[in-house]
């Protein structure tokens, strides 16, 4: 691994100035995305700015709109949080299935959303719940945040401080795991806000997480598994590898959407 200087700032201010001073510096959150990549020599930052000692980046709180999760909150903490389970159970459930137990002890919300791995789970939740990404500089709406795989609207010296997830009337996340990596080969997050239905898809697309207008329109017209039967998922937009064809991924998008919808219908709707 290329040598680097490790910084452990105690405040956000210090962290931001470290980033501004050094173009080549990277943020370190849980490390379970970044460190493997550094081990392979695919990332060679000259400095790492560790966020683990910054108090402001910890904590979960309820807000009038929903729940706010600070950036350095571990997946296991989100999964175990009564606040999150009470407000958005689908979000707690999603966090509880990221990776494996060891990853969940270290991986963070901020790290995942900042990385925007095309097979990660959190981006689907952020997009479908229309969450607000709060940074050291501003707030960014979900629809403006994701800009393609591994690419976000974040400036080089901008740090995610927390994410506020609006509380939906109902939500669900279903995924099919890649047989080798364990990541989401396809993940679908469905959320209902009153008459609105938002469907976001991770894993399947070649350009990272996206919403599917066709699925949303069909589900708004009628919220039932059958209503999406005629929706076309363009296989050409799908990723493919020797584990799964494009057509297969396109099929999974619909299958997983149906499962989410069926789950909603079998559960007590929220008021």
């Amino acid at each position, binding site marked *: *691994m*290329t*040598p*680097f*200087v*490790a910084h*452990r700032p105690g405040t956000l201010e210090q962290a931001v100035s470290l980033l501004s001073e050094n173009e080549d510096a990277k943020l*370190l959150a849980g*490390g*379970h995305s970044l*460190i*493997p990549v550094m*081990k*392979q020599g695919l990332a060679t930052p000259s400095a*790492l700015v*560790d966020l*683990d000692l910054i108090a402001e980046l910890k904590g979960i709180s309820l807000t009038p709109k929903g729940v706010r999760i600070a950036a350095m909150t571990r997946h*296991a903490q989100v999964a175990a949080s009564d606040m999150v389970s009470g407000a958005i159970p689908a979000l707690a459930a999603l966090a509880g299935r990221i*990776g*494996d*137990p*060891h*990853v969940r*002890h*270290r991986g963070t919300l901020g790290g995942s959303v900042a990385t925007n791995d095309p097979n990660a789970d959190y981006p689907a939740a952020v997009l479908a719940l229309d969450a607000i990404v709060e940074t050291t500089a501003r707030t960014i709406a979900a629809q403006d945040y994701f800009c393609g795989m591994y690419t976000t609207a974040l400036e080089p010296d901008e740090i995610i401080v927390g994410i506020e997830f609006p509380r939906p009337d109902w939500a669900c996340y279903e995924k099919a795991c890649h047989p080798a*990596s*364990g990541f989401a080969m396809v993940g679908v997050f469905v959320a209902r806000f009153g008459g609105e239905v938002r469907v976001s898809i991770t894993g399947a697309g070649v350009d990272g997480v996206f919403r599917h207008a066709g699925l949303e329109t069909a589900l708004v017209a009628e919220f039932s598994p059958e209503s999406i039967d005629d929706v076309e998922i363009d296989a050409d937009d799908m990723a493919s590898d020797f584990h799964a064809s494009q057509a297969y991924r396109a099929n999974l998008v619909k299958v997983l959407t149906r499962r989410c919808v069926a789950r909603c219908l079998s559960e007590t709707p929220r008021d």
Partner: protein
Amino acid sequence: MNCEFTVNGKIIAAEVSSTLLLADFLRDSAKLTGTHIGCDTSQCGCCVVHVDGRSMKSCATFAWQVNGANIVTIEGLADGEELHPMQAAFRKCHALQCGYCTPGMIMTAVDMVNRLGQVSEPEVIREQLEGNICRCTGYHNIVRAIQVGAAAMHGVEITAPEHETGKGQPA
């Protein structure tokens, strides 16, 4: 960077480079070679240790990241000559063959029980082993061992199905 760790109850002060992974620190500096490295994509779980009471992949963590932490490795589980109930369960249930994945597997199992209590549902145990790969055992005996070990950690003895096999001549 100057760091201090508590490893298996002993305080170790060490000067560590920024690139030193916790796994390498444990194996090379602390001379605790029980923690193993089985892959380079942080998927196999051979390197799992406990940091401040929770399981962690030591191959995906820099040593300095856990400065000041309380670290327990496989060498720290037994109480002198007396095996930890989970270690004893692994032996009783023949849950290891080559032994290479075993330290990480046992540390994972102990963490599982710490979090979930006296875990017994095979589906739950199997899901909780998502981050651990074994090539020798087919997981059958590992799941059994975790059931037995989880019970033992709660003072309950489950009869270990030592080997569930019919034997002899075909009837």
